């Protein structure tokens, strides 16, 4: 049986206000799994994604990504190769770079593509995202929704093996949903690509439903 792409082993996460978001949580994510999550605000969806990406540090237990534990302050080979597609709710783009430069940066830095090739690849994905006219603009100009879609394009351009996608801050309009479906649909063509989509009821065809709440994570509806 192939090793899971991600495993949370007895993970405890305490929120800054002292509340336990997860306590001794065990959860594994198999390669090629596709989930869209249920769970209201404060249920721990974003916290779970942050744990999986190595951004939130667990108070106890450990997170094993692609067979190697995530350790604070230590570079992780999976992340260094740019194989994680991290799409936070605001897109997480650098505000001083254009949308194109934001997509190009990890291609050059993590995957050592030359500038011209990285720009070609990035532009191709921005076209898929319907943002080719705004490629030269900084994220503040098109707005949160477009930044989030551009962040999806960034994850796709890198050839991410694990996608952790949070719900967009400002909600989605029809055009953004179409663009997101197009990009995620293309990523999902590869059976080894794993996707966790928070609040992705608009893309329920993607895969199974994952419920996050009361400090637990399970597939399907809460028993």
């Amino acid at each position, binding site marked *: 049986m192939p090793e899971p792409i991600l495993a949370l082993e007895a993970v405890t996460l305490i929120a800054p206000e002292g509340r336990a978001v997860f306590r001794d949580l065990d959860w594994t994510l198999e390669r090629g799994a596709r989930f869209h999550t249920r769970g209201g605000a404060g249920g721990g969806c974003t916290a779970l994604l942050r744990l999986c990406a190595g951004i939130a540090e667990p108070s106890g237990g450990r997170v094993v990504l692609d067979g190697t534990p995530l350790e604070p302050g230590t570079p992780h080979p999976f992340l260094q*190769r740019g194989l994680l597609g991290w799409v*936070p709710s605001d897109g997480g783009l650098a*505000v001083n770079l254009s949308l194109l430069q934001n997509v190009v*940066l990890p291609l*050059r830095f993590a995957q050592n593509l030359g500038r011209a090739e990285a720009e070609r690849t990035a532009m191709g994905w921005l076209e898929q995202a319907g943002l080719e006219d705004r490629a030269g603009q900084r994220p503040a100009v098109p707005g949160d929704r477009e930044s989030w879609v551009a962040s999806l394009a960034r994850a796709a351009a890198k050839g991410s093996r694990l996608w952790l996608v949070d719900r967009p801050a400002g909600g989605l309009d029809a055009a953004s949903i179409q663009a997101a479906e197009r990009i995620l649909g293309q990523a999902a063509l590869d059976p080894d690509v794993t996707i966790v989509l928070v609040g992705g009821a608009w893309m329920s065809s993607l895969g199974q439903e994952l419920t996050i709440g009361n400090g637990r994570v399970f597939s399907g509806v809460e028993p």
Partner: protein
Amino acid sequence: MPVRLACRLGGKVRRAFGQLGSVSWLLGQCVQGLFRLSREQRRVVREGARNQIRFTALDALPLCVLTALLLGGITLLQVFSQLSAFGAERHISQILAQLVIRELGPLMVGILVISRSGTAMATEMASRKLSGELDSLYANGVDPVPYLLVPRLLGGIISIFALVIVFDTVALLGGFLVAWLRLPVSFSFFLSALGEAIGQRELTATFFKCLVFGAAIPLVCTGFGLRVKRSTTEIPQAVTKASVVSLAVLLMAGAILSVLIYA
């Protein structure tokens, strides 16, 4: 009472060493990051450093030239009035050169860089941290140390070198202009006196001061910017601390280097 005072003093000393430790750690990370860069990463870092130099050195040139010109002229006026009381006006260019090159040049440039670029670096890092941009860079395979800190470190060192050369030259020229208005000195006499005044020690001191100031300012300022945790109200506090501490580091490092080289 004495115990409480000792505890408070001890706490401050411990905090100061803690800050020194975190700056040293950042420096270590930058040096490590610099040597691990791949070819394309080096290109990205070079582009970042070029932007940093443009902002820190090129954009600061008008202010630097104005400050140098005024400071050179004013210093000469003050020194001239003292020297003329002893009939030693002919030593004016040597004294001006030593004062500007040994102390004023690096110090004034350091202060200019802290006030323009150091505060900007602290604000930028704090904002990026609070907005989650640093987390996003890390998660997407872009290590923030080589991508953000190394260009600022390299840019800081190169910019301070460049600005000190411009500052010293303009300040000496400003001094000459004032001297020329008040004394029968020729430019060739002024230049030859400068040549006598500037020796190996002056160049060594300038080199080390530029290196230390150029590294310390970005490291201290980005370090304080990265310490913010949750609220945007922490940003102005971080910027104030960054500028105060980097100024203190500048003064102390300048004094230590001067004592080591000239004493």
